[in-house]
């Protein structure tokens, strides 16, 4: 019927052309995708303030030296406390001061919540958390909340200032940040222009800064006080003379914006004071760009600060990046000489710096762990950032206290005044962007191009494989339902178009398996008193058992005697690649950075894989290369490998332990990070893929897609149900992961009795040392270099595959050598 049809329409012809040249197109697209990713720093635009109502810097700062002196007195008073036995001295002092200013104040008591991973709650968002049984009154954190009611407002909106401090052992830097907030608060209690309430949250960070802010936000939005049945008893012991204070939970309106103010102990290496902005919240969410813009604008133009965002420092010295920058600069100059309008070139140093910033931005978003206490706000749709001020010289905190208070106070005042002008929520500017420097950004429209180019080959390859599979062997199509020899009576083959159902079923089964294995850590975690290493081993063993089980169940529903068996893998690959495509697209909407990194790993994997048995039959150089590529990609795509290689690069290979991966994964999952799913999926898919690749050809392709789809799917399910109106916080297991200065550390789990210990906070520059320290904490851990383990495993597989190739059991290579585990026997 098709032969006599007229020429199809141009768009269909174009599609057919693309499909027929899918190899070329996919290579071109992938290269273009990677190149455009590297070009992103060049394509970044300068930021601009999009919301006109903000009007930053239009008013003269009102913070006077009197306010600052008051703030200084406040700081000195805080620092004059010698012993802080109960941790209530500072809250009391803050309370008194706020009441003197005429603000409202209340204390918010909270316990660190131990969010146990629960399979259902992982998808649904955090539950209330469990309060540990044996706590003492001392383990309560006490946030102090001061509120100024706006003279010109109706109490429906508020701006939040957060100053985290450790109530048990306060440092000068933290005292300074409290002083800044106090100076500002005293000013704001007098001004007439305020139309949004001001909330000052002095967050008690003895359990971690994030925990304090998150638990306050949770109570603010749910208007429940938790199940602190014993709070009265503790209140009696802790707060005896607070009778005159209102004891209930005080509310202001919905939050328009939140600023976390921190002062750093470290000095900068620059000649100016520096302000570091942290913006990444959970799962790669970012605050509205306008908030960063006004802070940046006021800091640079108003107070003469040097504004920074995080970078990956090691990239700054990378030779390849420099040469790439030179190339781009050259090209830019060339283009500029041809036409002065084309001035896209940027200097090498700027390019390298932008790339390092972009990489850090991507990394933080992909990890899905917030870079500071501001992350808690984003879960309630409040735009928030952390501003960290680092002075010029390290000793200058004492000497230049007044100056720092004045400048930062004026900066924050300017930001508050701008936000105060807002009529609506932040909505004008971008929510989806990557920062390349504080004043440059890459918007969603630009970075999506890079991603689209990268994943564009997937549907093409799926389509071309699908059309190959359905058209190339018309005689085999008859055998779909019954594997009898093709009958020639019927010229029209039966249900060509539904042949993919088998492949879809295989993919579905693997997805099911991976979903089960994703939930396994919950049960593994129930085992008391086991080291991460044993947990990880139990987990691996259980996963393998489940795999065996599911295979028994699903049975070999493939018609194993079919002639079409050898070509079946093309269909399977097609389905997997399509699933991978769907998964990646989904993920790109949820968390772009994860999707981009996932695509970088997955797309080459999807495109190159071919059953090794086929390759082995051919025995050409090309096949060999392809096989080698397969191996490399599988190895690279295996999450533990990635994890250990990265970690090794950061802190040296000598400190590695087998159990580290468990710890890391655990921390990811306690943050509800979508990356967690990616990691886990990747593992088992890859395993699976690897195992079967050597055994039977059609199983081979499946494993790719599973991981992506499950990334997408789980993130999706989680996100879909997670954000009910009143829940949706990011549960932090305070024991496992603590935040300090924007880096998260693999900290050893302390016992519950250790909870009262002050928090160790890791700084950026101390990263290496602290990692080493952390590694030393674990005693029972074994010093196995895990990559060796995996390598050995793969080698084993490889040898088996080679023996198959040598001939005797090429088709029925179901019985592997005795070296394999028992589960493979049925193949």
């Amino acid at each position, binding site marked *: 019927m098709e032969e006599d049809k007229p020429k199809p329409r141009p768009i269909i012809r174009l599609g057919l052309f693309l499909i027929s040249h899918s190899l070329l197109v996919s290579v071109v697209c992938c290269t273009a995708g990677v190149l455009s990713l590297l070009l992103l720093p060049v394509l970044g635009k300068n930021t601009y303030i999009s919301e006109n109502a903000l009007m930053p810097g239009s008013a003269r700062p009102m913070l006077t030296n009197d306010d600052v002196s008051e703030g200084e007195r406040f700081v000195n008073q805080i620092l004059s406390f010698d012993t802080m036995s109960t941790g209530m001295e500072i809250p009391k002092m803050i309370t008194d001061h706020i009441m003197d200013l005429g603000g409202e104040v209340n204390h918010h008591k909270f316990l660190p919540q131990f969010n146990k991973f629960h399979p259902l709650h992982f998808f649904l968002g955090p539950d209330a958390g469990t309060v540990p049984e044996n706590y003492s009154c001392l383990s309560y954190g006490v946030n102090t909340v001061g509120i100024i009611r706006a003279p010109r407002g109706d109490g429906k909106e508020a701006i939040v200032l957060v100053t985290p401090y450790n109530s048990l052992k306060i440092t000068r830097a933290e005292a300074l940040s409290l002083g800044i907030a106090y100076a500002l608060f005293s000013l704001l209690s007098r001004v007439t222009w305020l139309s949004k309430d001001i909330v000052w949250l002095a967050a008690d960070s003895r359990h971690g800064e994030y925990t304090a802010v998150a638990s306050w936000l949770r109570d603010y939005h749910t208007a429940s006080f938790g199940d602190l049945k014993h709070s009265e008893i503790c209140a009696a012991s802790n707060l005896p003379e607070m009778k005159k204070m209102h004891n209930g939970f005080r509310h202001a309106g919905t939050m328009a914006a939140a600023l976390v103010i921190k002062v750093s102990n470290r000095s900068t290496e620059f000649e100016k004071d520096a302000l570091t902005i942290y913006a990444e919240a959970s799962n790669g*969410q970012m605050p509205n760009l306008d908030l960063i813009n006004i802070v940046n604008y006021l800091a640079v133009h108003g107070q003469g600060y040097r504004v920074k965002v995080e970078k990956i420092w090691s990239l700054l010295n990378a030779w390849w990046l420099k040469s790439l920058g030179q190339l781009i600069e050259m090209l830019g100059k060339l283009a500029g000489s041809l036409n002065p309008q084309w001035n896209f070139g940027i200097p090498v140093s700027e390019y390298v710096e932008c790339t390092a910033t972009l990489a850090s931005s991507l990394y933080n978003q992909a990890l899905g762990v917030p870079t500071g206490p501001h992350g808690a706000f984003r879960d309630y749709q409040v735009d928030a950032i952390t501003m960290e001020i680092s002075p010029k010289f390290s000793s200058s905190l004492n000497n230049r206290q007044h100056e720092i208070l004045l400048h930062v106070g004026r900066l924050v005042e300017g930001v508050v005044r701008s936000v105060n002008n807002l009529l609506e929520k932040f909505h004008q500017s971008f*929510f989806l962007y990557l920062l390349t420097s504080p004043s440059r950004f890459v918007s969603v429209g630009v970075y999506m191009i890079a991603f689209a180019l990268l994943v564009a080959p997937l549907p093409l390859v799926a389509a071309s494989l699908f059309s190959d599979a359905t058209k190339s062997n018309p005689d085999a199509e008859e055998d779909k339902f019954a594997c009898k020899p093709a009958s020639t*009576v019927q010229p*029209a083959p039966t249900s060509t178009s539904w042949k993919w159902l*088998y492949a879809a079923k295989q993919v579905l089964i693997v997805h099911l398996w991976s979903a089960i294995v994703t939930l396994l850590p919950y049960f593994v975690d129930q085992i008391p008193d086991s080291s991460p290493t044993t947990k990880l081993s139990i987990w691996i063993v259980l996963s393998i058992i489940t795999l065996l089980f599911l295979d028994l169940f699903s049975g070999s529903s493939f018609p194993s005697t079919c002639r079409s068996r050898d070509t079946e893998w093309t269909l399977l690959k097609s389905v997997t690649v*399509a699933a991978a495509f769907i998964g990646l697209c989904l993920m790109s909407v949820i968390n772009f950075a994860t999707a981009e990194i996932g695509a970088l790993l997955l797309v080459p994997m999807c495109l190159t894989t071919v059953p090794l048995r086929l390759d082995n039959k051919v025995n050409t150089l090309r096949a060999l290369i392809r096989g080698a590529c397969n191996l490399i990609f599988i190895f690279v795509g295996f999450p533990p490998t990635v994890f250990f290689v990265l970690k090794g690069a950061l802190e040296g290979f000598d400190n590695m332990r087998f159990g580290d991966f468990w710890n890391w994964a655990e921390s990811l999952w306690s943050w509800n990070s979508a990356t967690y799913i990616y990691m886990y999926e990747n593992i088992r898919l890859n395993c699976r893929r690897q195992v079967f690749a050597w055994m039977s050809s059609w199983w081979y392709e499946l494993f790719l897609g599973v991981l992506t789809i499950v990334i997408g799917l789980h993130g999706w399910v989680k996100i879909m149900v997670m954000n009910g109106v009143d829940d949706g916080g990011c549960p932090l297991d305070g024991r496992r992961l603590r935040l300090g200065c924007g880096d998260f550390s693999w900290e050893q789990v302390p016992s519950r009795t250790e909870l009262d210990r002050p928090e160790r906070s890791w700084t950026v520059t101390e990263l290496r040392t602290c990692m080493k320290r952390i590694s030393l904490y674990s005693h029972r851990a074994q010093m196995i270099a895990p990559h060796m383990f995996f390598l050995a495993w793969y080698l084993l597989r490889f040898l088996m595959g080679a023996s198959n190739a040598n001939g005797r059991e090429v088709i029925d290579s179901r019985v592997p050598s005795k070296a394999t585990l028992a589960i493979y026997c049925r193949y």
Partner: protein
Amino acid sequence: MEEETKNKINGKKLGFWKWAIASVIFRLILIYFPQNLNLSSRPEVSTPVTSLRRLAEGYWLKQLSMSPYAGSMYHGSPLLLSVLGPLTAIKVEGQPNHLLCSLVSVIADFICALLIRATGCILQTAHGQNLKSLGLETMLEDIEIMPSGDIAALVYLWNPFTIFTCVGFNTSPVENLFVVLSLYGASAGIVPLAAFGWVIASHLSLYPVVLVIPVILLLGYCPDTPPRKLFLQRDFQKTGAERSIKNHVQERPLTNKPAEATFFWWRVILFFLWASIWIAYVLILCAISVKEYGGLPEMFKRTYGFILTVKDLSPNIGVLWYFFAEVFDFFRNFFLIVFHVNILFMILPLAIRLNHRPCFLAFVYLTISSMLKSYPSVGDSALYLGMMALFVNELAEMQFSFFLFCGYVGVSLLSPVMHNLWIWRGTGNANFYYATAMAYACFQIILVVESVSAMLNHDRKIRKQCRTMEG
């Protein structure tokens, strides 16, 4: 969704009952986690018309002797309110809320699947006998005929859409049940049952009104056949020797004289008679039920009026809400007419073209109305996908099946994500969500177009074979 198809394809050894019972058990497990799954508040699952939470609200109002329609909460039938309302109020100690309603949904789903299976059996018998009477027995031998009834029932039961609808506190399973009941009654030739199903289904959700044409065709002719012209040609050429085949056919009461294009007027008249009886009955019951609250006019205004004038513009997976949120008020009536006439426009041409396959025609109508109705939910998709599986044999060569499958999977995953980006994260806007709704509508269009063309191709193939046999 398609997996079961495959299981069945592999042969009967897997067993229909095993899988059906497994699906029921799966549902029973799921309804123990209703709070966790939170499905009843998803816009994809429950609409203003079908939501059971709204029904519970209406029942509560009625208990307070207020009009159940007060406050624009409830928009369903008063009959449903009297039947399901008490169930929503009963709380079993220690069990999740709405347990009884969920059980009703599970039972409705199960019966629905059984009815689909029975319809499939009838269709298949008719199909085989038609082919025999055309002298195409070879066709039956060459291709293994799949048990389409079993496949369709299992596709219906295991379709994730059906499961979500069933678990998500909805009246959709009940509505679907009556639609299927009417089609079953019509294909089995049980006129009162067909009329009952049709009247109740139309009463509950209005759109099944258009099914009157397939039902009449089913009753007037018989279940789906190849084009009638073929039989005429065949009869014309045949001698009396072939009468034996016809006699053989007549042994089955369900497929009366498939070889002759007679139209049983008396059955149609009977159908209308029964239908009017049922309508009168339903209206009387409704009138009694809403007597104190404004009577029947109020009920019509609050139920059908609500559906037709698209009052509730909260986002759903349909295409109307966005449009009517944007359109100027003075154009509103015009566009209301345009959108509803859209459904009506397609009825006649399709009825003419597909009049020899009334069941398939019903499937096409259901798809179109689920695409263009004012408050669509995935429950509608569940119904038409189950119906589609009745025609596995005919649609075996459907084009783009893989593309459609990927599209359905992709859209059904993407739509909640977009909704989340818009409503909860605040980083997206309404266009994000509406884009997925449009993509969903497009996939439904492609599904209709491709399935109809596959069906017509199948008919062409039969015609060709008839010709080759003659020649």
